[in-house]
Structures are given as C-alpha cells and as structure tokens.
C-alpha cells in the first residue's frame, strides 16, 4: 500500500532531524497569560502549557501526534496530490512562492498531517492541522487530506479524530477553497454513516470556513482550554458592531457556555477524555464496575413496573 509510509517513532525522528529540534537550556519564553518567564525545555515537557497559570500555548503538529497516539507511535498516511495554484494567484507575493516557503519551513506538503494508530487501545485515524503552514488555512490539499483520513477511517473501521488549528479557508485558492466546506462535510458524513465516531478536538485557533464546516458537525466536540473558536474574526466583528467584545468571547469556555462544544479539557487530560469517549461510543466492555453484567438476584429485582 503505497500511501502508508514508515512507522514513525518520535525518538528516531528527533535523531534524524526534521521539524523537531533540540532546544538549548538557555531559551526562555514569556507566558502570554501571566507573563512569567518559562524555561523552553520545561515548557515543552509540560506540553506547552504554562506551569504558573495553565495558559495553553499552541502545540507543534508533530508533537501533537506524538502525545496523542499510544507510546507516540503512529503511521503517517500520505494524501494524494492536488492541483497546485490553479488560480495563478498573486498578491504582493505569488501564492506558489508562499506555498514553497511554507513547504520548506515545515517540510510538509500542506497544512495538515493524516496519521493512524491507537489511542488508549482504540483504533484512530487523526487529521491534525499545522498552524505554522500558512496559518493552517484550508485549500484543496487540506480538503483532500480530510477526505483521505475519513475514508481511511471507514476502511479500517477506526474512529476519525480531527484537530483543526486554522485561520479558515485559504483565500489564495479562491472559491475552490470555499468548496472544501461541502467537501469536508461529505467526508465527515461518510464516517458517521459507517457508524464510526467522528470527534472534533478544537484547538487554538479554529475560525472561519474551517469552523463552519467539518469542525462543527462532530459526534462530540472537545475543546482545549482557552482556544479561540469562532466564525467571524474578532476584528471584523468589532468593526461591524463598533463595540468592544465581551471578555472570554470566542474562547472554548464561551462555546461551552453557549452549547457549541461538549467538553473543555486541559491538554494533559485530553487523551484520557478521548479514550473514555471512544471506548464508550464503541461499546468497549470493561470499566471497573461490572455489576450490571451479572445475573440479577431474585430478591433484588425492583417490584416497580414501568
């Protein structure tokens, strides 16, 4: 199967180089939440979450997959190539050049990785966005990846878990990027029609055409703490209504309050949450209390009839 690449182990990846680099001890980073100066190495060990205030910074996509899959093991699924720059788009810079820059910077074809493995023993196909690649914008390549991931999930009877981190549609692909909205919704529907879980893990940021398509039609929506999630950009809204926005607007907790997500979780608890819901949705027997499975003693039966 040509679309299966080699088994990736995080340690080997670190040795051979790639996007993950060794971090020198002397690097510090200021927490955007509380301004504490944080040791970069320590920050990385803490999943890019501030130890002082719990602020969740963005996470590199490879690291995201490493911490998602059991023992950091996953298989990357290659995505069929799509038309490159059919619009011959150019603003102050050519789109093709922006694309090449992003590809060189990230060593990736587009703003997404599709991978498969297990999460808490459950078969999972994951599609995770790389915000560092043109703001995680969705064009034909990203759409193709969602379709590929969904179909792989159906073929292997796996759950499909998506991790959007995106500014929205990639405007350099014009209406073709807009068409990825119906396209990715069809992909999500194929997973759901196959009776498989389709889970959306909303990470910072998820906005625009990505939110308004496959990211809002999940069986379960889980959001990482503090992530920005919305349709219209905050600045656009401010300009329209000419008012300042309410505190916490378009953050995970705001969406939870407004009924748009099921669960807001800390990054460190994400896998546990994901594992639990996947096991429940897939009727995985187990758990500690199996009292319901045994025969009911005669005297214990309720006399009430319903």
């Amino acid at each position: 199967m040509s679309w299966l690449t080699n088994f990736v182990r995080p340690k080997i990846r670190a040795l051979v180089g790639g996007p993950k680099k060794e971090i020198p001890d002397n690097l510090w980073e200021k927490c955007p939440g509380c301004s504490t100066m944080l040791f970069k190495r320590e920050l990385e060990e803490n999943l890019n979450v501030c130890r002082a205030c719990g602020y969740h910074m963005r996470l590199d996509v490879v690291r995201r997959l490493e911490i998602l899959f059991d023992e950091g093991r996953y298989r990357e699924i290659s995505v069929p190539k799509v038309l490159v720059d059919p619009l011959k788009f150019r603003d102050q810079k050519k789109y093709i050049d922006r694309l090449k820059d992003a590809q060189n910077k990230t060593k990736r074809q587009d703003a997404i990785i599709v991978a498969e493995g297990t999460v808490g023993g459950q078969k999972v196909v994951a599609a995770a966005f790389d915000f560092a690649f043109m703001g995680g914008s969705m064009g034909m390549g990203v759409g193709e990846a969602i379709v590929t991931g969904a179909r792989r999930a159906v073929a292997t009877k796996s759950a499909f878990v998506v991790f959007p981190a995106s500014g929205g549609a990639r405007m350099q692909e014009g209406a073709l990027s807009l068409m990825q909205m119906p396209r990715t919704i069809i992909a999500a529907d194929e997973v759901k029609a196959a009776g498989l879980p389709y889970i959306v893990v909303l990470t910072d940021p998820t906005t625009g055409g990505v939110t308004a398509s496959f990211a809002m039609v999940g069986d379960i929506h889980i959001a990482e703490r503090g992530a920005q999630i919305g349709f219209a950009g905050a600045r656009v809204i401010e300009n329209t209504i000419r008012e300042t926005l309410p505190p916490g607007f378009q953050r995970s907790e705001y969406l939870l309050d407004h009924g748009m997500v099921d669960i807001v979780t800390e990054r460190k608890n994400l896998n546990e949450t994901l594992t639990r819901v996947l096991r429940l949705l897939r009727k995985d027997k187990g758990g500690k209390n199996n009292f319901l499975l045994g025969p009911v003693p005669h005297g214990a039966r309720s006399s009430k009839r319903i």
Partner: protein
Amino acid sequence: MQVLDFEQSISELETKIEELRHLSDGGRVNIADEIAKLQVKVEKQLHQVYDKLTPAQKVQVARHPDRPHCLDYIKALVEDFTPLAGDRLFADDQAIIGGLGRFSGQPCVIIGQERGHDTESRIKHNFGMAKPEGYRKAQRLMDMANRFRLPVITLVDTAGAFPGVDAEARGQAEAIARSIEKCLNINVPLIACVIGEGGSGGAIAIAAGDRVLMLEHAIYSVISPEGCASILWRSASQAADAAAALRLTAQDLEQLGIIDQIIPEPLGGAHRNREEMIARVGNAIGEALEELSRYDAKTLLNNRREKYLAMGKKSVS
C-alpha cells in the same frame, strides 16, 4: 438609478435622450431621428463597457442597489408564495426569506437572501446578512421539502453571514455547517442561483446544490475583495487587484467547475432591464427543474455528493 463610475458617459447620453423625449412631445419631428441615433450610441457604449467588465467592475454591478433582489424574483416568478417564518428555536431572521410556492405550476420550497431596497427594508433584512436563526430556518425548510418531496430553489445574494457577537454566541459556524450538510443530504433537487453577491460561507450555506446557476455579472467568492485586500495587501484600497486575483466572476467559476451555468444579463446589466432579467432567471430555473425531475432520489444524492467531492479536480486552462 444609481450610476456606476464607469457608466458615466452612458448615463449622460441616456439623460440627453430623456430630455429630447420631452421636447418631442412638443411636436418637433426630426427629434425622433436624433433620439434613434443617440440610442445606437448608447447601445454601442454599453457593449463596449459591459462586454468586458473587469472583475472589480463586476463587483460593483453585482452589488448594484437597483438589481432585482430575492423578493423581486419571488414576486414575479412564484405563484401562491407563502412565506414561512422562524427557526423554531430562537427567532425569525428576515435576512433569509423562505416559504412554499409554485414555480411554473410546480409546488416547491424557495429560500433566499434578501438585501432590501431602501433604508427601512435594509434594516429589516439586515442587509441580507443572516444570523444562525436564518440558516436554521433554511435547514427546517429543507427538511420540510425533503418530507414532502418538493424541489428546493435558493436565491443567493449576500455579502456574507452576519459578523456579530450575538451571531457567534448562537453558533454561526455550526448553523452554516449544518445548513451545508442539509443541502447535501436532502433527497430532492436543489437548484441554487447566485443572483448578486455570493459571499463566502454565508452563501455556500444555501448553495451546495445539484445545479448552481449564476448571473452573468454576479460574483461568488471565498472572501470579499475588500477583506482579501486588507489581509494580503494590507490595504483595502487594493480591492480591485484582489477582485481579479480571487477569480470571482461567473466566467471564472464556470471554468473552474464550481458553477454549472451562466444566465446572460440584459445589455447593461440586470439593473437596466429588471423584467427581462427576472424572466431569464425564471426560464433557467425552469429548465433545471425539469432536467433534475428525471432523476430518482438516490441518483440525485449521489451525483450531488460526487460533484462536490470532485471540486478542484478540474484544471483551468
């Protein structure tokens, strides 16, 4: 009628013709010849301008306030129109008009965005920018169409979904996503017609159909040229460049395989001959309805899904 900057000289000729018409009431015979001459000149200039409108000019034409709007089409083309209101959850959003009616005799569900034509109606219809309740009303009506096996006709004309705090609080993104999903899942024909501006997610929410028709000078884009320019050029004044780069004209979109058919506009644009435009739209929708009525539900659904799955596979020459 509002005169667009590139229509200036045409408008001057038209004014002159009007003046002469008034004079001719006084009985001067040779004025008729003069009027005819001027009319030829107007027609020539209209051809010169409108045969090769730039993308930025098309944006202006597509947004022309005197272009027929959703309710104009409904009034002229739909018999027994019965507007239906509300999403049964929160409110009725008048940015999206919906209801039952008869299109050339055939009962169907009509859904469309209405921008309004004066200050009062623009406010009533929120300038055609729908909130979640509008998209949820659309979903409800599509469900009803599905249940009664009525074809759905949508008229697309919006700058985009409304960007506001209340819209976000009530789940604008979810409402749009579900509306697209509904378009893709109904077992009846869905014909979408972009009559003016097809603004991004707010447009595709009701436009993921079996046939997407588009008026000759309408536009359909992932982002407004102004929005695109302010992000990529860091200046909204480059909107004309953005309009060209985005390939948002009907001609571009037909080439990209995103729309199925272009409906020609009368000479000088829909705003110059509203009745003619409405009739042409009526004919085109009628033909599409007739063609789609030949397919059973399963074929219809499969073809629609395959069409959207294949988007972008067709190359542009």
